[in-house]
């Protein structure tokens, strides 16, 4: 009975201690497994990351540079619009710590576009963030920073810069503060310019900036010289419809935002958004129509121009009456309204309207510019309408319409939509025939005759074989015509032996000067612009002056009657 030495309670105690120990071990084991599991997991993840993940590369490093908004370049790659990083100056009004009134005065001294009161209101407004100036110069930024106000926020923001300033402003347009196009190509091509896939590639225009600069400089000189209200010029490639230069003066600087009232002056593009009665420049178009329609079968046939025509209550008269019978070359060189009216009447209303429709005079100009103006065309073709529209009265079109029609007139008779964008060799549209090729060939010689022997003598740039037609129209005002205000236009093409470019120059309300004998007619004020422009841009466009070459006009000259003394 001595077998049991320990009391049973202790045995029980030992047994329970063993099991408790086992439990502890078990728990420790589980804990260790958990920890090592986690460690293993982390190690596995690290290995996985090392093995599976490819090399991480910084996003910026892509070699190329993609601007926030695509550049616009001319046909030679010269930049016309670019997005750069500009400075902006803003303020957090709630965080201003210095004296607000004093700060407002200092800001007004640095940025005088707003008054000190305006800045004081801005500083006391309950807004979180107020822009004080966008497009700030680094110098100004440094000065504002030197004020030492921590609430001023200086930031870098993409800013649209037009390196050529006012040049081609109406073509390029401008963007608003949020970099959204608001005018010109910036508006019509906004999608293309901001599209992530395409904005790395600059938008190439058909424009040649050197030609544009020459055109604007000559137009501006003439506008100032003749105190004209406005001036417009277009240079158009006759074979592709590309607009090589397009200018509307007075212009504006797209780099400068609107004034305090949000108004931007001179925004109207006179070349596409304004219509004019372009006068006698229509005469070659009418003659081409008449020849195509077999109304004029012989240009030597004479028409009575001895007296003014009376049609209804209206008198059609010539500015320089010849008081004799005139044939077609004489009618064009003397610019006779009477003869043109007779020919237009023979063509008739239906065929006149059909022809003007074919030339696109009933549609808005097809061009990549916003809000092109629809021409004012006759709804009812009265007898007077038929006659006057033959010489460009009673129908108002944009200068671009005229340039496009002249391109068709001289290029063999094919009308193509004009474009501001570069057309590569394969992208030129086929166009549609509006004038017979033989008629076009004759018209080239007649246009050249007007410059050598007619009203366009002042456009005859030496060796450039310019041909064109003058057009002086009284400005319509309040239902009648103002005989003291006129629109003087010269529509031309060069070189006439193989026309490549059409040049249209127009002055709105020019005044005569001493060297024009006080006259403000197109031959005196608009033709010299074309002459000077052609002499400057010809060599730039690959047309070199050659005084040994010209169009053979001997047969046409023979038809022009001259008084005995001059023969």
């Amino acid at each position, binding site marked *: 009975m001595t077998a049991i030495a320990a009391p049973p309670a202790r045995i029980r105690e030992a047994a329970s201690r063993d099991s408790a120990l086992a439990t502890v071990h078990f728990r420790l084991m589980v804990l260790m497994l958990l920890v090592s599991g986690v460690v293993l997991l982390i190690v596995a993840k690290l290995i996985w990351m090392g093995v599976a993940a490819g090399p991480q590369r910084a996003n910026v490093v892509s070699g190329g540079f993609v601007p926030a908004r695509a550049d616009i370049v001319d046909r030679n790659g010269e*930049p016309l619009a670019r997005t750069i990083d500009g400075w902006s100056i803003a303020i957090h009004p709630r965080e201003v710590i210095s004296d607000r009134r004093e700060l407002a005065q200092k800001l007004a001294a640095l940025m005088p576009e707003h008054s000190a009161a305006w800045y004081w209101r801005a500083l006391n407004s309950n807004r979180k963030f107020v822009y004080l100036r966008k497009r700030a110069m680094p110098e100004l930024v440094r000065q504002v920073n030197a004020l030492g106000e921590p609430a001023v926020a200086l930031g870098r923001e993409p800013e649209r810069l037009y390196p050529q300033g006012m040049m081609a402003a109406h073509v390029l347009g401008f963007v608003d503060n949020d970099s959204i196009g608001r005018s010109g190509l910036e508006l019509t091509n906004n999608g293309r310019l901001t599209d992530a896939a395409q904005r790395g590639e600059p938008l190439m225009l058909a424009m040649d900036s050197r030609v544009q600069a020459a055109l604007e400089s000559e137009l501006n000189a003439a506008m100032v010289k003749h105190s004209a209200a406005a001036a417009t010029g277009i240079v158009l490639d006759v074979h592709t419809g590309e607009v090589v230069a397009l200018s509307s003066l007075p212009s504006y600087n797209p780099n400068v935002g609107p004034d305090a009232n949000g108004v931007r002056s001179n925004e109207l593009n006179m070349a596409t958004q304004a219509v004019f009665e372009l006068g006698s420049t229509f005469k070659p178009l009418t003659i081409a129509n008449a020849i195509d329609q077999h109304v004029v079968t012989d240009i030597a046939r004479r028409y009575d121009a001895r007296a003014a025509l009376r049609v209804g209550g209206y008198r059609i008269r010539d500015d320089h009456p010849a008081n004799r019978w005139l044939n077609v070359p004489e009618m064009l060189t003397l610019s006779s309204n009477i003869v043109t009216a007779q020919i237009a009447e023979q063509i008739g209303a239906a065929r006149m309207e059909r022809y003007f429709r074919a030339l696109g005079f009933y549609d808005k100009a097809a061009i990549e510019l916003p809000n092109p103006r629809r021409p004012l065309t006759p709804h009812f073709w009265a007898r007077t309408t038929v006659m006057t529209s033959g010489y460009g009265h009673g129908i108002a079109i944009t200068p671009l319409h005229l340039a496009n029609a002249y391109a068709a007139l001289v290029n063999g008779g094919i009308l193509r939509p004009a474009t501001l964008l570069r057309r590569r060799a394969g992208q030129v549209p086929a166009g549609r025939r509006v004038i017979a090729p033989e008629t076009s060939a004759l018209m080239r010689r007649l246009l050249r005759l007007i410059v050598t022997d007619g009203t366009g003598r002042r456009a005859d*740039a030496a060796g450039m074989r310019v041909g064109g037609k003058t057009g002086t129209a009284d400005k319509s005002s309040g239902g009648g015509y103002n005989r003291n205000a006129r629109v003087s236009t010269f529509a031309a093409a060069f070189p006439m032996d193989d026309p490549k470019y059409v040049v249209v120059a127009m002055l709105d309300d020019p005044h005569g000067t001493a060297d024009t004998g006080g006259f403000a007619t197109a031959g005196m004020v608009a033709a010299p612009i074309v002459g000077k422009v052609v002499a400057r841009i010809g060599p730039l466009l690959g047309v070199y*002056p*050659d005084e040994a070459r010209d169009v053979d006009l001997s047969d046409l000259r023979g038809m022009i009657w001259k008084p005995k003394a001059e023969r």
Partner: protein
Amino acid sequence: MLAARFRSVYWVALASVAGLGCYMVTQRVAAERTSLEKLERDIWRTRMSIRNLETELGTRGSLSQMEKWNIEVLDLRAANSAQFVREGVQLASLNASPVPGAPATVAAVRPAGVVQAKAEVPRPAEPRVEQPMLRHANYVRPEGERITPLPQRVALSGAGPLDSSALADIGRIARVEAGEAREQ
């Protein structure tokens, strides 16, 4: 025996050397890649600054500014049709006298400013704004007959291929050669 015992140690050492080598290669590649990225970022930054400088240059030298300088400072005009040479014969004719043998007389080449300067001699105080700011060096001709204009020979045409002395030379050489040919 010893080697056999330490075989496992060798294996471990070998494996760790190989692993370390691989790791070093990885590190090396990563370092190269980093420097490449840095280089690419430098290229990008340089392109950006080229673009900015180009833009600045284009803005400062815009076409209207150029025209202003051309007219007001340099007095340059667009070339006229007589200044274009169309063929080689025309180019050669620029260097020849109008008549072979006759001395070429040319008007003294005067910049535009000289003619105006002559007119302003009696009243030199009057400022002339239309003159270009930068002009060729010129002098003001004295009034009257103190200097009689002499016909000037242009150096080039004097040494030209067809003036009288050259023709005489050609004739002399021809005679000598003809004589030599007869002797042979």
